[in-house]
């Protein structure tokens, strides 16, 4: 068993990346991600990690260099947030279309304007559709475990993986974390062997122009591989459980067996919400929680199964999709339910934006509203939660 240590989550994440024996780290500083790459730079400069650290001049360059390095057969890592992710944006669909197993940690942060360094999911939702496998961590232990998992999945599925951690409220917290023993990491993540790469001994062409005769087929091939990655993701978690004893699933549930209403949450807020579930359960209220761990590919069947017998759910989104029928998660959930016989009422609230705290009392209010929504008229809309009138 690995040792339980007290670490800032960012440091633990960087240690996990180093345990995965990355060859190339390419990153640009941005709050609240910096502690991760600073620590990796420390490890490299102290000779504890045999890797090239490229101190690039922008996030766009960070991903560009990862693409070049990964295409050459190197295991790569980068990390960013908010404006950095947006500046990197152009490279994201290229990384996935090239089927490169790049791993990126996103310290989720609100996007400008107004400029905010604080947490929400506005940044990562912009890359929702770009062919990156995406997981969300709720705490430091999960952050570390999802990093190991990311390399395993990326290199099996040959697709890039983004691991999401809530900025500050996960990244900057010192808490107990258990890192895997190195030999287990080595077993879980064997050396990267790429079938096709930039190698003068076997020249290939990467990035040819997709004429109309082939563009559709190219995207279809990518999409099939992406959909197939669901199984890779699940299998990698099953294997992870065998070596660590820690169990992860695409959709996690909490006290859903007999729940009448539930909250649907992604990221670290779900843990705080558990306390509210416990408190309300003590008062005899049948409430539950659905936590989305795997956001892309979206685990539709798991999600529908997780609903149990609920009559109403509140999807608590952390990002806006201006003028849409809901927040990104809300839209996804409603769309999934449309094909299902099970169709609880869906209230879609968008909140905890730009670092606004959601307290136990707030969650109580959310559950109250979900109960009263059971009998309300369905609405295909969203509401911003907590905005002062």
């Amino acid at each position, binding site marked *: 068993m690995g040792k339980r240590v007290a670490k800032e989550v960012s440091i633990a994440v960087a240690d996990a990346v180093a345990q995965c024996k990355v*060859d*190339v780290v*390419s990153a640009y500083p941005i709050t609240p991600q910096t502690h991760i790459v600073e620590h990796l730079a420390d490890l490299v400069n102290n000779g504890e990690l*045999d*890797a*090239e650290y*490229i*101190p*690039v*001049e*922008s996030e*766009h*360059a960070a991903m*560009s*260099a*990862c*693409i*070049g*390095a*990964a*295409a*050459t*057969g*190197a295991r*790569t890592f980068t990390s960013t947030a908010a404006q950095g992710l947006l500046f990197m944006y*152009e*490279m994201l669909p*290229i990384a996935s279309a090239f089927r490169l197993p790049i791993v990126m940690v996103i310290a989720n942060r609100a996007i400008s304007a107004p400029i905010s360094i604080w947490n929400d999911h506005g940044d990562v939702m912009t890359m929702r559709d770009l062919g990156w496998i995406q997981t969300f961590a709720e705490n430091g232990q999960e952050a570390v475990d999802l990093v190991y998992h990311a390399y395993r999945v990326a290199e099996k599925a040959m697709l890039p993986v983004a691991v999401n951690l809530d900025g500050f409220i996960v990244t900057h917290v010192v808490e107990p974390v258990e890192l895997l023993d190195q030999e287990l990491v080595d077993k879980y993540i064997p*050396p990267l062997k790429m079938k096709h790469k*930039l*190698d*003068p001994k*076997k*020249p*290939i*062409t*990467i*990035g*040819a*122009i*997709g*004429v109309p*005769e*082939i563009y559709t087929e*190219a995207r279809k091939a990518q999409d099939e591989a992406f959909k197939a990655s669901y199984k890779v993701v699940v299998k990698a978690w099953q294997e992870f459980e065998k070596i660590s004893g820690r169990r992860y699933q695409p959709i996690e549930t909490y006290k859903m067996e007999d729940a009448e209403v539930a909250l649907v949450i992604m990221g670290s807020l779900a843990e705080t919400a558990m306390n509210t579930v416990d408190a309300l359960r003590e008062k005899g209220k049948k409430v539950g929680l659905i936590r989305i761990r795997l956001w892309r590919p979206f685990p539709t069947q798991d999600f529908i199964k997780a609903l149990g017998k609920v009559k109403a759910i509140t999807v608590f989104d952390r990002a806006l999709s201006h003028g849409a029928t809901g927040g990104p998660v809300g839209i996804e959930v409603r769309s999934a339910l449309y094909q299902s016989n099970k169709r609880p009422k869906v209230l879609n609230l968008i909140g905890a934006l730009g670092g606004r705290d959601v307290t136990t009392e707030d969650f109580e209010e959310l559950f109250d509203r979900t109960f009263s929504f059971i009998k309300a008229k369905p609405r295909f809309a969203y509401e911003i939660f907590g905005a002062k009138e």
Partner: protein
Amino acid sequence: MRPELAKFKGLNIKELPKEDWIAPGHRACQGCGTVLPLKLALKVLGPNTIAVSSTGCMEIITSPFPFTSWKIPWIHVAFENSATVASGIDSAIKALKRKGKIPKREKINIVVFAGDGATFDIGLQFVSGALERGHNFIYICLDNEAYMNTGVQRSGGTPFLAHTTTSPAGKVIHGNITWKKNLDGIIAAHNIPYFATASPAFYMDYMNKVKKASLVEGPAFIHVYSPCPTGWGSKGEDTIKLCKLIVETRIFPLYEVIDGKYYILNRKVDKPKPVEEYLKLQRRFRHLKPEEIEMIQKRVNEDYERIAKMCEVFAPPKD
């Protein structure tokens, strides 16, 4: 002076490999003066080379699926970031060599081919970052002085008063109102091991420069003049003539800068031809009035003299 450069005596034309590493069947225009320096560079660099192309004509014409003209490993990622992609490749090779996954002694050239738009404009930050970080790669800027791939729009590399579709020779404004950006100065200011300008007409000079670029450890940059008959309104058969005239008129002096400190003029032009001789072969300059040509001539003289002077003052030490 760098010993690896001092030792190098020049390529022998007879010993050049007969093989080319770019295959025919590419879709460049007739008389393309941009694919030509690309071809010549690969002849020198040989098969142990990984190439990165920026988005642009050279990328489009060599890779319409399912065909590729590249006989070496090649990657195209986007318009602006080829230097950074090359940074990633360089770092990967360094790490993988240390870990024994690539044989340590294997010499792999990394070469970037990028146009003037990708280099002077949209990619300048990326180029600067990669040069500053000291990656071991060769950047070849194929300068055809406008965005040819998208239909001849002006770039930072477009000459003064040239007609392009976004700097048209109008009745009031007579073409491109800015002087060509001094990219060479910007690049040389990075104090990289090797910088050179080149023109394909002086092919041995150019190929020797490519060789030198591959000999130095660290970044090397070659700015090569690359005529575009389609964009310039010149005749395909005049491509090499233009490549000669640009040098003989002193518009594009051939020189090298070693480590940012030693300047070497490769071709002293004592009896320059008038710029008009060069300009008149191209439709993009046909609207020029005599006084405008005079302005250009004056600027050309000044620029050439400045470079020549630098080459005198900052000549490498004689061994």
